[in-house]
C-alpha cells in the first residue's frame, strides 16, 4: 500500500502570539512542532504499512525548516520524505496550497492520503478536501477509526453530536482526529535510521509551477492585516460565604449581565 502523509509545522501550543513591527505574526523565539493532528496521521500511516506492507511517504511544503518535521516523521517510521522548500509560498491561501500540494502528490504513487483534521495555526480545515477534489477522490474528515478491506476504507468519523460510519473507495483523503491512535515517539534507533532515509527536495521548477501562481499573487483571498484579540479585563470578584457568593452571582447574571 502506498501511503502519503501531509505534514505541517505549527507554533507550539504554548506560544503567545505577538505581531512584529510590520503587523505580521512574529515567529521569533517560538518553537515549531509537528501539527498535533498530523502526528495521528503519521502514526496511522505507519500502522497501515505494518499491517499491509508498502511505504509511507511524508510530504511538507514551506521554508527550509520543514525538513526538521519530516526527519522526525522518518524517525517515527516513515520511509521517505518529499519537501517543496520555497519561501515564496508564504502568503498562499488554501486554493494555492491545495493546487501546489496536488502537484507534489501527483509525482508519487498513492492509495491513501492522510493528514490532520486541522492545522492549529491557520485552522481553516480546507486544503485536504480541496486536494481530494483536485485528485477526483473522496475525503473523510475527523477520522476516529479506520479499517481497510481491499480497496475500500470503512471509516468512523466525528459528526455534530455523534459519529458516522462511512465507506469510501481508495484512493481517498482522510483527516485524523484525536483518538485515532497514540502516536509513537521516535526511538534512538529510529532517529539513527532516519538520517539515512531519502529526503527529496523539490523546487517549483521541478513541478512546472510558475512563481506567479503562488503566494499572495496566486491567492484568491488577499490578506489585509492581522490583529490581536482585545485584552479582556479582570472583572468583579464576588466575596463572602459560599451561600452569599452563589446568590449574588445568580443575581448579577440574571439582572446585570442579562445572559440567561
Amino acid at each position, binding site marked *: 500500500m502506498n501511503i502519503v502523509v501531509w505534514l505541517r509545522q505549527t507554533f507550539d501550543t504554548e506560544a503567545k502570539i505577538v505581531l512584529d513591527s510590520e503587523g505580521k505574526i512574529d515567529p521569533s523565539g517560538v518553537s515549531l512542532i509537528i501539527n498535533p493532528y498530523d502526528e495521528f496521521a503519521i502514526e496511522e500511516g505507519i500502522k497501515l504499512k505494518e499491517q499491509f506492507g508498502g511505504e509511507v511517504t511524508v510530504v511538507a511544503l514551506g521554508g527550509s525548516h520543514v525538513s526538521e518535521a519530516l526527519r522526525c516523521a522518518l524517525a517515527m517510521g516513515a520511509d521517505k520524505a518529499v519537501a517543496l522548500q520555497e519561501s515564496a509560498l508564504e502568503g498562499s491561501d488554501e486554493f494555492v496550497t491545495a493546487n501546489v500540494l496536488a502537484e507534489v502528490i501527483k509525482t508519487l504513487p498513492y492509495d491513501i492520503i492522510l493528514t490532520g483534521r486541522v492545522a492549529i495555526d491557520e*485552522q481553516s*480545515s480546507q486544503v485536504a478536501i*480541496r486536494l481530494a477534489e483536485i485528485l477526483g477522490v473522496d475525503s473523510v474528515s475527523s477520522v476516529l477509526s479506520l479499517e481497510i478491506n481491499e480497496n475500500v476504507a470503512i471509516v468512523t468519523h466525528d459528526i455534530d453530536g455523534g459519529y458516522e460510519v462511512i465507506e*469510501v473507495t481508495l484512493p481517498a483523503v482522510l483527516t485524523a482526529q484525536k483518538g485515532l491512535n497514540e502516536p509513537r515517539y521516535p526511538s534512538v534507533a529510529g532517529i539513527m535510521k532516519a538520517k539515512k532515509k531519502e529526503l527529496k527536495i523539490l523546487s517549483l521548477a521541478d513541478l512546472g509551477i510558475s512563481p506567479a501562481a503562488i503566494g499572495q499573487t496566486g491567492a484568491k483571498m488577499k490578506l489585509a492585516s492581522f490583529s490581536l484579540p482585545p485584552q*479582556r479585563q479582570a472583572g468583579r470578584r464576588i466575596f463572602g460565604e459560599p451561600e452569599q457568593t452563589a446568590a449574588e452571582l445568580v443575581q448579577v447574571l440574571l439582572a446585570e449581565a442579562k445572559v440567561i
Partner: protein
Amino acid sequence: MANDIFVILEHTNGQLRKVSLELLSEGRRLADRTGEVVSAVLLGTGVGELIPVVAAYGADQVILAEAPALENYSTGAYTSVLNKVIREHQPKLVLLGHTVLGKDLAPRLAQRLGVGLVSDCVGMEQDDNYFVKFTRPIYAGKAFSHIHTEVTPIITTIRPNTFTLADPAQDRSAKVIETAVNIDPADLRAIIREVVRAASSRPELTDANIIVSAGRGIKSAENFRVVDELADVLGAAVGASRAAVDSGYREYKYQVGQTGKTVSPTLYIACGISGAIQHLAGMGSSKVIVAINKDPEANIFAVADYGIVGDLFEIVPLLTHEFKQRLA
C-alpha cells in the same frame, strides 16, 4: 446578478439549525442596507414545510432542490447541486455555517468553483464597493486575520453564535424556485453505513448559548455530575479543559481549547479551570466569563467578568439550587 446573497441551509430531523437562522438574519441585515436579494438554498426531501420559517427569518426567495438522493447529506450530491445552482445564479456572497457539514462541503465547492473560501469567519464588514472584509481567528483565537477578495462568489463558513438571531416576521413570504436535480451516480460513491447521535437533550457545544465547563479541579469523572446538574438547569452544554480530558474525567469531544473546540457562547462558566493559554484561546471570545476556582491566583480570573474564589463542590451546587428557584 439578481441573487446576491446565498444562504446554504442546514437541517436535521425537520428542523433548521440555529446557525442557518443566524445566517438568514445577517443576510437580511446586509441586504436591507444594499438592496440585494437574500436567497436561501434548501436541499433535501419533503423540506417544503421549512419554507415559512426561512421566509420569516429574512429570505426573499428559496431555491429548492428536492430529490431522494438529497435526503441525507452526501459530499458528492450536495456539491454537484450547489455547484450548478451557484453557476446559474452567480451570487456575490455564499454563507454556510462552520459546522461538520459546512466544513466538509464548502472547501469542495470552493475548489470546484475555483474560488477562495473564508473558513470559520467571526466577522464581516462591507466597504464602499460592497466587497466584504472578513475576520477569522487563527491560533485558536490568539490572533485574528482580516482578509478580503474581489473574486466572486465569495464563500464563507460562519462560526455559530457570530450573528444574532432576528425576530422572525411571520408575515414575510418568499418566492420558491424549484431546481431540477440530476445526480451522477458517481457522486454517491461514498456509502453511509451508520449514523449514531448520542441521545442528548443538551445543545451542541459549538452552538450553545451557555456552557458550564470543568477542569482538573473536578477531580473525577463522577464529580462531573455537579457540572451536569447546573448545565441542565440552565439548558447549557457541558465542556471540559484539556487537563480534565487528559485525566480521563470526560471524553475528548467535550474539550474546549486550542486542541479541542473553539466556542463563543454568551455565558461561559469555568469551574476548577486554571486558565492555561490553550484553554483561554478556545473560549476567550465568550461574551461573559464566570470563574470559580480555589486558587485566587489562577489565570482564569484575569479574563473572568465575575470571579468567585472558592471550592467548586460547594459553589456549583448552590448555583444550581439558586438558579432552580429563580428560573422556576
